[in-house]
């Protein structure tokens, strides 16, 4: 499976966080549309949204931690990784993966915010 692939070569680790964000997005919009259209079940929809947000954020934090280690920023406090070597490629991919985790965290929170304020299906 992809998580077994070596981190200096696999792009999977890099795009994992945005993928979780995308799945969360689709799930939240799909489930809300169905629950609201069929049963006007706003409470259940909000509950589903909050639960899937908790899961998504946990996963993204885990992915982000992995990426942070892979980037290995604290080793020298630098983000210079522009050589065509395995080490630099690994750190570069980690750096990108970490930043994408940050963006995905913000994205997931923004997608959830409406459910915090809007309590009905209207």
């Amino acid at each position, binding site marked *: 499976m992809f998580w077994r692939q070596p981190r200096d070569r696999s792009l999977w680790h890099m795009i994992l966080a945005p993928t979780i964000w995308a799945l969360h997005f689709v799930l939240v919009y799909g489930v809300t549309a169905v629950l609201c259209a069929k049963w006007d079940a706003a409470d259940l929809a909000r509950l589903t949204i909050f639960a899937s947000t908790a899961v998504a954020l946990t996963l993204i934090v885990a992915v982000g931690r992995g990426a942070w280690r892979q980037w290995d920023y604290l080793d020298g406090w630098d983000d210079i990784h522009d050589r065509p070597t395995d080490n630099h490629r690994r750190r570069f991919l980690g750096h990108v993966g970490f930043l994408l985790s940050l963006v995905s965290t913000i994205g997931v929170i923004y997608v959830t915010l409406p459910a915090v*304020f*809007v*309590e009905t299906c209207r």
Partner: protein
Amino acid sequence: MRAGLACLALVPALAACEGRQSVLDPAGRDAAVMAELFWWMLGGAVILWLLVNGLMVYVSRLNRDALSVRAATLLVVGGGIVFPTVLLAVLLSYGLSEMPRQLAPGTGLSVRVTGELWWWRMEYLPEGAETPVISANELRLPAGSRSELRLGANEVIHSFWVPALGGKTDMIPGRETRMSLEPLEPGEYRGQCAEFCGDSHALMAFGAVVMEPEAFREWLEHEATDAAPPATEAARAGRAVFLAEGCGSCHTVRGTPADGTIGPDLTHLAGRTTLAAGVLPMTADALKRWIADPRAIKPGARMPGFDHLGDARLDLLAAYLEGLE
């Protein structure tokens, strides 16, 4: 005052910001919130603009030396990531926290508004009423309470918008959308269709009148009554022309044999502030012009012209319609 200044500075060529159809001159709670948000956004945008351009002047004119890596990183992370994320979250939260109120159920009156080509069907349902009071082309609401609007459309999509009172909501055939409005200041405002809907889209407007609750109650009671019988000789003759020419196959005048529903209800036409969905004044002259050739005034209008009637009979028709208070 604030609105006036911004007008001077920003849009001298456009219509004044003060007026019957201005987002910047709110007369209702919902519109006030949006106007306030607009001023905050504008202020913020001006500050941001000054900051960004100030920075540009600084690095290109005042201090051309390279920034330290530390300062540059701080600028990018702080100004490029943290600042916009927090700012957008605050704005989004404020906007979202305001949304439920603007969709809140009304506390009494509800009005069903249907977008037609190119006019508005209005049906008033006071609290507890079973049958609606039917009217057209003018929205009247009581001040100080939240009224519910149930929006629909025939044939094509329209959008309901009274800028002085609140936001806009699409009107979709086969579906009921809803919104609510809480007007605060009695007065005369103007609504406008805000979704392109064909030839006369731009001429699909309406008067919006906010009244003291007591006056509104009286108005609605009157609106529910049958049409006043013609009071003058000319008006009586005008009614005969109206019925003979078949106006009644499209228009309803309650209390007469005219019961068509293709066009606007004319029972209390003369009580409206405008004619033909906000495009003409309610005068005898405008009535004559409209009846003689509606399409000269509203391209594509779904009412045939009656210019063959000649001036004398158009005068009689106008006299009759003017009496429909």
